[in-house]
């Protein structure tokens, strides 16, 4: 069952469908509501102006693409971990939960600029996100929160918010160039404050040691690259030595993403060049090779762990559709994008 078929099945679980809504005449009541909001707002504009909280900041949403799998290579680092991983760790606000029973369970999305880790204790979750301070947008929360309390977190002035009448707490603070967002559902404000108070700053090595095993797994890169290339179709001009000779160490998933990116980027670039040159046969060969990516073992292994294969397969399907002059039968934003406009960011080409 593909994604579209699955979505179709999920659609049957909707308690009310758009068709049912359309069967009721809602034009007049909806118009009356709009009138009521505008007129009511005009009447109370002065009062509301006095009550409105100041806006902290408005920023574009943080852009995170499939390229998160390709950690940047900034050099430096100690002997225990790959240089690129150390570079990420050095740039991150490294914190661990000190309260008993909590362990770091997820850290699969970070770069030198931003990241997200999850701590868990039983069914409880506590998430830490960090991002450039300029990208942070706590204003939405500030406006809708029913609490606004300041606490100290590792020497930083943090503000705690809560989505009104829920137990969903969020704390925001700034640490150097980073804005940090801590979030979790807790039974009380005191419980949330307690976990914030238990946060402790740690060294690069202690932070990396706490990561789940899947994050950093040194391996024999050349051998693994060769193993990952079994069962794939290599594009013309493919530089296997560059992949084999990489000096950095990634975990298996990340290395799989790098190998897959080199293959797919190569095929897509061949396809674009062939299309531009009017070489229909070469263009079709590239489309066929990318279609074959559905069977690449490296991607099928990765598919259990993350969404990179899905992104690549969507591009492969979109390529075929563009070649045939049809719309791709996919449900994501790629449906409306041209492959040549999105593939580099989506796959992390050249990283």
């Amino acid at each position, binding site marked *: 069952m593909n994604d579209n078929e699955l979505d179709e099945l999920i659609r049957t679980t909707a308690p009310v469908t758009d068709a049912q809504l359309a069967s009721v005449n809602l034009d007049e009541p909806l118009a009356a509501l709009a009138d009521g909001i505008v007129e009511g707002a005009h009447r109370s504009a002065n009062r509301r102006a006095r009550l409105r909280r100041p806006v902290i900041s408005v920023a574009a949403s943080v852009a995170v693409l499939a390229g998160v799998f390709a950690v940047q290579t900034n050099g430096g680092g100690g002997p225990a971990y790959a240089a690129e991983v150390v570079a990420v760790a050095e740039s991150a606000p490294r914190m661990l939960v000190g309260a008993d029973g909590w362990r770091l369970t997820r850290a699969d999305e970070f770069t030198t600029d931003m990241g997200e880790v999850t701590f868990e204790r039983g069914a409880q979750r506590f998430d830490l996100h960090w991002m450039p301070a300029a990208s942070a947008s706590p204003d939405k929360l500030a406006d809708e929160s029913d609490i606004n309390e300041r606490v100290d977190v590792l020497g930083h002035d943090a503000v705690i918010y809560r989505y009104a009448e829920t137990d969903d707490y969020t704390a925001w603070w700034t640490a150097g160039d980073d804005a940090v967002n801590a979030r979790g559902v807790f039974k009380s404000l005191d419980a949330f404050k307690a976990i914030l108070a238990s946060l402790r700053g740690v060294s690069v090595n202690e932070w990396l040691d706490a990561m789940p095993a899947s994050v950093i797994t040194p391996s024999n890169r050349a051998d693994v690259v060769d193993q990952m290339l079994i069962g794939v179709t290599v594009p013309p001009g493919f530089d296997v030595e560059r992949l084999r000779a990489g000096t950095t160490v990634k975990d298996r998933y990340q290395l799989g993403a790098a190998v897959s990116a080199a293959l797919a980027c190569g095929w897509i670039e061949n396809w674009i060049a062939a299309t531009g040159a009017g070489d229909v046969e070469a263009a079709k060969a590239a489309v066929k090779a990318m279609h074959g990516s559905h069977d690449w073992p490296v991607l099928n292994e990765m598919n259990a762990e993350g969404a990179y294969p899905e992104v690549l397969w969507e591009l492969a399907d979109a390529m075929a559709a563009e070649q045939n002059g049809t719309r791709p039968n996919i449900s994501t*934003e790629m449906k409306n994008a041209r492959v040549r406009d999105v593939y580099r960011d989506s796959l992390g080409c050249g990283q």
Partner: protein
Amino acid sequence: MARTNRTDAEQRFRALYSAHGRAVLGFAVRRVAQPADAADVVAEAFTVAWRRLADVPAEPETRPWLFGVARRVVANQRRGELRRVGLHEKLRVSLGAIQASSPDPADALALTQPIAEAMARLPETDREVLRLAAWEELNASEIAMVLDVPAATVRTRLHRARTRLRSVLDEQSAATRT
């Protein structure tokens, strides 16, 4: 507010209400106990949108932003105050007719039961990304705006949720055969 600014703001508000009002209503009506309660959510969400008109993002981010607001209204259950104001009584009454126009509940149950059961076995975080993708036909970036998490997180959650759902459906299917 000066008359000119007020008119400009009102025009912008009415444009976004016209473009997204029904979508927000659809989003809300699928997440409340009774269809009529969706009127409270729409009224509150668009009151927030009017109040924060300067913060409402431009297209194509407008709808996910509104869904995000509506989602929090549903979660926060702070709808009693507006109901007393009576801004949306007509809408409540109209939505009350939806149950009567629904298909036979028994038929609907039979049609959706295995998938509904499978969905029920997933964590709520999985269910919601699946609903947003299927019911509201949002892409990963839009879901990310609704849930206020990075798009990469949504991609991963969506993929895992679909994988889990297929696995549960396979288990159900195998159990039925034995």
